[in-house]
């Protein structure tokens, strides 16, 4: 059974840290004081018998630890740059024993003046309370590397004067977008981590979904937040069908749809309905609708490719991304035939040079047109560029079929 201190860690870390950081105007002091409080909880709480209000208990002990620290290290700490806070925003928000100030912690961790990798690390460390060694494992770097990344980022926040506050209304939307991109980066990092264990991948995706739920709780009604949650849930619903027992990737059309998580799909569709209320269409909203079109097709043949093609066209117009263009070409090939798809792949060679997806897509469409020689050559090109053994194996088996 999990020690009650560990349960309390996971449940309350972000909230407690956000509050202490504001009170003491230092992430370092808050982090160390909270570590002291949790250590004391591990030592004194009997398993199965936590205090009635673990969060309040931890807060009291951490506040005392922080005060002690200031007193003991007064000289050294006077030189520390302090977090810049507004007195008028320190008013407690939310109810309960520990006021919820995580929103400003999120905006500080996801500040655009920090490098994207640093934003991700800070957000996972402080909002979800993952330990440095856990984050290091998820991103396949050493604990020392991750610790250095966090230290650098914290130092920049303090010395550069990154404010510890929720941005003003005028900037809120733009800044929320940065936050959502950090969350999505955590999610896609999970999906990219093909060299790591499948478990790692799912854990990162779970963290991203959990993070988005926190943002949704703190900013209720934000349609973009719902769109991102819908997108992630609809994709994550397919997690158990994405790989076979050997760990090889299974394409969407060949996945066992009964292995898709129905509950996640339902929740994703509910959030999507909320996100679609009102006008305006964010990138996440278009992507969520594409994911929904796949998730609601009972069989691959039921997929509404016309709709997916149209959604990709809107997404391409919005992002100008060559990867989106490639996905659009694949969808158009399904809706209108392989020749139409091939035509859309023209002109991508420079932008996608070095990516195996482009020759792989071409190879597939040539195969369908019965152009075996061109298909074979394109598969060979794709194999040379593929990054993982899984992908190479899969491409080689496809090439075999056209030989």
């Amino acid at each position, binding site marked *: 059974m999990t020690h009650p201190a560990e349960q309390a860690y996971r449940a309350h870390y972000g909230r407690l840290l956000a509050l202490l950081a504001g009170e003491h105007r230092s992430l370092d002091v808050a982090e160390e004081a909270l570590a002291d409080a949790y250590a004391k909880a591990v030592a004194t709480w009997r398993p199965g018998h936590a205090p009635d209000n673990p969060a309040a208990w931890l807060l009291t002990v951490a506040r005392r630890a922080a005060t002690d620290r200031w007193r003991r290290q007064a000289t050294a700490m006077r030189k520390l740059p302090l977090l*810049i806070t507004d007195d008028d925003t320190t008013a407690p928000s939310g109810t309960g024993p520990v006021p919820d100030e995580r929103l400003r912690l999120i905006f500080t961790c996801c*500040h655009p*003046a920090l490098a994207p990798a640093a934003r991700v690390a800070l957000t996972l460390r402080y909002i979800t309370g993952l330990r440095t060694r856990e984050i290091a494992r998820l991103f396949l770097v050493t604990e020392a590397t991750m610790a250095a990344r966090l230290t650098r980022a914290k130092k920049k926040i303090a*010395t*550069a*004067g*990154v*404010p510890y506050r929720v*941005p003003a209304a005028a*900037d809120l939307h733009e800044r929320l977008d940065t936050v959502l991109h950090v969350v999505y980066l955590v999610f896609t990092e999970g999906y990219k981590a093909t060299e790591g264990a499948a478990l790692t991948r799912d854990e990162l995706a779970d963290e991203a979904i959990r993070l988005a739920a926190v943002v949704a709780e703190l900013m209720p009604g934000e349609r973009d937040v719902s769109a991102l949650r819908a997108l992630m849930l609809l994709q994550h619903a397919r997690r158990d069908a994405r790989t076979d027992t050997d760990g090889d990737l299974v394409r969407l059309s060949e996945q066992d749809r009964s292995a898709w998580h129905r509950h996640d799909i339902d929740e994703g569709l509910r959030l999507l309905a909320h996100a679609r209320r009102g006008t305006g269409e964010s990138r996440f909203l278009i992507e969520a609708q594409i994911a929904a079109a796949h998730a609601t097709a009972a069989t691959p043949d039921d997929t509404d490719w016309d709709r997916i093609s149209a959604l990709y066209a809107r997404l391409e117009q919005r992002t100008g991304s060559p990867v989106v263009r490639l996905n659009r070409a694949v969808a158009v090939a399904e809706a209108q035939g392989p020749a139409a798809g091939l035509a859309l792949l023209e002109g991508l060679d420079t932008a996608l040079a070095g990516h195996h997806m482009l020759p792989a897509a071409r190879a597939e469409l040539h195969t369908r047109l019965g152009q075996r020689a061109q298909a074979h050559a394109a598969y060979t090109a794709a194999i040379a560029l593929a990054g993982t053994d899984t992908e190479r194996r899969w491409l080689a088996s496809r090439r075999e079929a056209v030989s």
Partner: protein
Amino acid sequence: MKYALLIYDNEKNWALADDAARTEAYAQHGRFTAMLEERGAVRGGEELAPTDAATTVRDDGGGEFILTDGPYAETSEQLGGFYLVEAADLDEAIEYAKALPGAVVEVRPVVDHPAQ
């Protein structure tokens, strides 16, 4: 907090600019300074002469100094001037940087040495 706004630009653009373009650029800096003054945020600032007037002095570590003609780093964009501004936090400093004419503005906090 005090911040330095370091303005980097391609010097060729400035060298090739005609009178009208220069007048307009100085007018932009005038408006920028007026905006800062209104907020009580001006702490200083200068325009620097182009880098062909620069001399780099390097201590060779053995008590000798090596002088070279030109700037410390040969880059396509060069430091052309700076402002020192007072801002509540990085967000406000970035807002000032965005209001500045110039291709690239580096925002650097100035180290605060409190009186002992």
